[in-house]
């Protein structure tokens, strides 16, 4: 084989092998479940580590929000609507989007009783933007989905 051809072959082989390996790794990475926060099920089942700073998330259970006397301390329950609930205690100002039924991310530590002591509470906004009068319709939509 001519040297030029040989080099071209080397380039093509190199790129093919490299691209194949990359594609394979990306595919298998996609199959991994990515958890940038612990869902309620993992917190309940004990998959979330105790005592270290972690991030967890879930929906605020209706009627679970209890403010203490100072007005800053709050205790609420997060759920995945599939039977997994855990309690969160927090001392600070809640974001304006915080309400019952809202998706919430909390950063903090799980204590030995599996109560989450949050240092930060963040409200996760969804992609739906609705004026107040359409709220009923939106609820109807998500119920039918």
């Amino acid at each position: 084989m001519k040297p030029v051809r040989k080099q071209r072959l080397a380039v093509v082989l190199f790129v093919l092998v490299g691209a194949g390996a990359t594609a394979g790794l990306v595919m298998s990475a996609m199959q991994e479940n990515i958890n940038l926060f612990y869902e309620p099920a993992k917190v309940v089942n004990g998959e979330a580590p105790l005592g270290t700073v972690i991030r967890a998330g879930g929906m605020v259970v209706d009627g679970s929000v209890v403010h203490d006397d100072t007005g800053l301390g709050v205790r609420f329950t997060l759920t995945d609507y599939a039977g997994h609930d855990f309690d969160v205690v927090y001392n600070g100002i809640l974001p304006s989007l915080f309400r019952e039924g809202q998706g919430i991310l909390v950063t903090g530590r799980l204590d030995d009783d599996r109560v989450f002591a949050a240092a930060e509470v963040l409200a996760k906004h969804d992609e739906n933007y609705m004026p107040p009068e359409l709220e009923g319709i939106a609820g109807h939509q998500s119920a039918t989905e």
Partner: protein
Amino acid sequence: MRAFAALFQRDLLVALRRPTDAANPLVFFVLAVLLLGVGAASAEKGLGGSAAGAVWVLALFANLLAVEGVFRRDVEDGTLEQLLIHARPRFAAVLGKLAANWSCAGLPVLVLSPLAVYVLGHSTAGAGMVMLTLLLGTPTLTLLGAIGAALTAGTGRGGLLLAVLVMPFYLPVLIFGAGASTAAGAGGDAAFELLVLGALLTGSITAAPFAVGKALAISQEY
């Protein structure tokens, strides 16, 4: 593979002949770790769980320091012109140079990283993962940084300009590398991050040498 071996051997030889230059990134890494340790000495547990992330950032900068000069001498003495003309295939020559560069900077930092994690965090939690992610991540940094170094070769300006150019490409590597290390330190699972780091590595091994070759050719068009 002749071009790869020729460049790898020569750059290692040149590094051995100028040991103080070659050790610069390692010295930077050690000094930065020590200073950071002194700075955080008043904290109860040093940097605690952030130690792994801090070590990653310092390793990234040590890598940038090393890759900044990877083509400088070749531009100055004219061997770069000769490489562009004679080294075939060009991507193999580029890979050889970068492999040598990583062996002189990335590898020693990798070896020292568990010690750095311990010094900064007062615990070896996640130290193994730091080593593993540095092994997967710092060659990617070298490859991506080399694109920037090639683009700025012969402009007489490196340093901050290179940092600005390559930081966008360094960020994902840092995110996944430090993320996996921190997760492992906290007892979590890092399979996803490791797979992504692997994909970034193979992807940049495949594509970066060609971009570097093109950028070097542009730098010599005068």
